[in-house]
């Protein structure tokens, strides 16, 4: 009785070991290098996964850029990210799609919030704090202004407000030399 159990265990272990070795070997032998440029572009994107570029997330957009898509489709990244992407791809910077809005962040009118947590689930960067039946609030530093939380709110208590400009978040533009991009206006 005991020996038959041991035989069974050994046989299965041997089978598993053979298969494991096969898979281990083939994972090295058939390794496919991911295109390194996609990783680089992905690292530049803000990782909000907001989908405003028309792709389901930042990585698919990075993939699309590497295949020749425009670099100006990322509103959360704004001008700065667009320039980085353009430089990495070796192409001219493009105007951001649509007119550039002032940077907005979400603001919850807290006395109207019913604590349904729907905006928390929608937020791609976990910038909304709160719990069920507890009032929610937005962590200002984390919010990227992607507006994904506005639609799910059942009481419409989320506003997109411009960031108050302080000396901390004022864009000094010390590194940038202003030049005309579009000469044919």
């Amino acid at each position, binding site marked *: 009785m005991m020996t*038959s159990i041991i*035989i*069974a265990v050994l*046989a*299965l272990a041997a*089978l*598993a070991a053979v*298969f494991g070795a*096969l*898979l281990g070997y*083939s*994972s090295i032998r*058939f*390794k*496919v290098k991911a295109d390194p440029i996609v990783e680089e572009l992905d690292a530049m994107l803000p990782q909000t996964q907001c989908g405003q570029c028309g792709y389901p997330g930042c990585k698919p957009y990075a993939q699309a850029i590497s295949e020749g898509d425009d670099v100006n489709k990322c509103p959360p990244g704004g001008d700065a990210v667009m320039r980085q992407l353009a430089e990495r791809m070796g192409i001219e910077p493009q105007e951001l799609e649509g007119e550039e809005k002032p940077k907005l962040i979400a603001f919850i009118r807290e006395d109207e919030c019913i604590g349904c947590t729907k905006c928390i689930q929608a937020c791609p960067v976990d910038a909304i704090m709160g719990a069920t039946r507890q009032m929610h609030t937005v962590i200002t530093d984390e919010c990227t202004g992607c507006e994904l939380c506005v639609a799910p709110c059942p009481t419409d208590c989320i506003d997109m407000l411009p960031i108050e400009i302080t000396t901390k978040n004022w864009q000094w533009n010390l590194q940038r030399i202003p030049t005309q991009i579009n000469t044919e206006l």
Partner: protein
Amino acid sequence: MSNYFLLFFGTVLVNNFVLVKFLGLCPFMGVSNKVETAVGMSFATTFVLTLTAALSYIVNTYLLIPLDLHYLQTLSFILVIAVVVQFTEMVMHKTSPTLYRLLGIFLPLITTNCAILGLALLNINENHDFVESIIYGFGAGIGFSLVLVLFSSMRERLAASDVPLPFKGSAIAMITAGLMSLAFMGFTGLIK
């Protein structure tokens, strides 16, 4: 030779895995919304079915039967299927990126397709030899593909047609599948 031929057509039409044996219903309902995805899934499944049939036969004949371990069949076949799927995915990723992009998402899904485990176990029940096992596996794959592609093209038409409200969506798909199954029962007796 005619023996193999009969086995093949018997598996495709008379003993169709989906509509007669009711195996692999999950992808049958799940990926039949579009013809393109259905074709992708069909190719991937046929490929994995054929490979699994061969490999599970080898494992059964040269490992399980000599050691008298019949009760480990299910367990070891699951292992075989998982390995075949994983291995196929890796090789395909390396050798044919186009095919990988077409089948890529479907391959991991196939691991949990009961038609494949069913095939491995049925092969043993019916005492198939090595060649018969492979033909049975390939026939099962072709049968699955045939039904899946037919069904998905029907569902594309259903999506565009005016279905009464209580039957909309999955309900009419279920009824269609049932009618297809009835139609396939008409093949019984085609091959003695």
